[in-house]
């Protein structure tokens, strides 16, 4: 069996075992393909994403864990480091700072941390970045909250 498959299988077992350990992350493997995963993560509290549930899609390469998985948001999110249309995430650990010691679970944690602390160095969403750059925190927060309401919360009624 490929090393990547073996490792993903181990991660799968780990996820099953620790299902309740981290209530903010729900990591699910595709039924038929162990290289495809999805995750539901909760928007961190005290951020405009609070109360929202965001869906992530993982595409794991064959060389995993030596190469990072490709992760993108399926849920629309207004965040400077996330591409508004494609959901692509600009996060150093998913690019050159990747280390094989990361797991899918820890990647989810890193993404939650990124939601709480937008890193303005890699702007994929310029509008969002511009708001932060000009110091319009309120404007940024209300936009982000609006999109969280629209896209990441269950429709009421």
């Amino acid at each position, binding site marked *: 069996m490929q*090393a990547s498959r*073996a*490792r993903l299988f*181990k*991660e799968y077992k*780990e996820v099953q075992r620790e299902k309740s350990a981290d209530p903010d992350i729900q990591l699910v493997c595709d039924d038929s393909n162990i290289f495809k995963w999805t995750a539901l993560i909760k928007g961190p509290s005290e951020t405009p994403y609070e109360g929202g549930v965001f869906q992530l899609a993982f595409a794991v390469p064959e*060389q995993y*864990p*030596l*190469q990072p998985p490709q992760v993108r948001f399926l849920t629309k999110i207004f965040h*400077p480091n996330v591409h508004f249309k494609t959901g692509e995430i*600009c996060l150093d*650990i998913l*690019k*050159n*700072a990747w*280390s*094989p*010691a*990361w797991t899918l679970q820890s990647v989810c944690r890193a993404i939650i941390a990124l939601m709480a602390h937008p890193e*303005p*160095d*890699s*702007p994929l969403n310029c509008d969002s*970045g511009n708001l*932060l*750059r000009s110091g319009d925190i309120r404007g940024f927060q209300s936009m982000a909250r609006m999109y969280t309401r629209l896209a990441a919360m269950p429709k009421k009624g």
Partner: protein
Amino acid sequence: MGEYRSSDDDYDYDYDYYDDDDEVDFVDDDENAAELEAAVEPEIPPNSCPSSKVITKESLLAAQMEDLIRVMDLLSLKEQHARTLLIHYRWDVEKVLAVLVEYGKERLFAKAGLTIVETDDVSSSQVSSSYCCNICFDDVSLEEITTMDCGHYFCNSCWTEHFIVKINEGQSRRITCMEHKCNAICDESKIRCLVRARNSDLADKFDRFMLESYIEDNKRVKWCPSVPHCGNAIRIEVDELREVECACGLQFCFRCSYEAHSPCSCYMWDLWSKKCQDESETVNYIAVHTKHCPKCQKLVEKNGGCNLVSCICGQPFCWLCGAATGSDHTWTSIAGHSCGRYKEDREKETESAKRSLERYIHYYSRYEAHRDSSKLESKMKETMQDNIKILEECSTASSKDFVWLFNGVDRLFRSRRVLAYSYPFAYYMFDGDLFADEMTKGEREMKQNLFEDQQQQFEANIEKLSSFLDEKFHLYNEDEIKDLKLRVIALSATTDNLCRNLYECIETDLLGSLKHSVHKIAPYNTNGIEKASLPSYQDT
């Protein structure tokens, strides 16, 4: 005659660098001519060691070992550690010493990702019989674990996979530990050993990469840019801009690896050669999508992400302006870096487009004309040989007596080359855009007049020399030949002098007075571009 040189009494010159076959002790009954000749060919300092060397495939290892041993002796290091250190410092032993003196051993090593702490092996720190590898989460026995110098351990199969991926990514020389945020460079002997067990071809590839690091990561060594590649590299001993000739005969600029282009600066030549090429799709693509790394000069293609780009050599730089930066950056700025990226975005006026095209054509046609005549003149030598043969048959003259003729031709070639490249130089030097901040319009016009005066004088002399050399001397009698000889020798000296003056004008008056930008050119060498010497030692 110029006062920069005095004719010497004991001139047993080496004519080695000439293409004609025999070495000549120039003895002539005509003292005048001999003296002139002495003035044409400067004395080669007897103790001058060659400033550039050819490194062939065979001598590569020996050349590399020389530097390695210096560092190993100095810091009492193992070979692989010395190599890691030298790769990081681009094989600059002096730099290693400077850092050592300034920051001490620890910082020196830490900067290069070198950890030589005698860490306890897993065996002594843990006593259990199996260990969990943090990559594959498998429990493995002690024998299947490798600990790197940084103290991190993983199972052999994960290490091997990691190395294979990194080698295939072209990162052989900078394979870091797998642990998050650990920058330690992995021990090359362990890498070699593990990779060889899995894939011996790849291990060979790894060895080759390590060996070639001496060329690739070394600012004093460059591959000869010949196509097809001759397999040689050139090492220069002095840290300055120069042009060299490889053993394969190719002459190139050591800084930018393009053809020898002085008195154009590398930047000007880069602009010029791109301008002259057909604007093919490839060129467009390269221009639009790539930038030169400010550290290793390799072309870097941006494959996504933000405007802070890292080269394969690890150097971060700003994608907007191409300048080297640190890796710390925020939304508004990169730490310690401000780039004037709006400067170049000035709108070009359509009106000036036509004028600039005419200007370009003016310079380009002259540049081409001199390159063309230099091609025609290369046939001159053959014609001369034939003519000399005719003379030999009907008189006592021998080809030895015509060394001055070939010297004249060589002088003509060299001068013609400089003249050709002086046109693209002038194109950029007196172009309002490139040095807009440097001089006022008045200054520019004044400098342009000064330069063009010299250039024209130089050009006139070259044409005259060319016509002298074109004379049908095989029909001449002895006195006429003697006369021609005097004329050629005198004119060669004058041309050399003018060429030197032109360089001086460019180096001091034009480029030397720039305040904001640095353009350097390879210095003028009256004997033409230096040939790199072949290695004297053999790889054993």
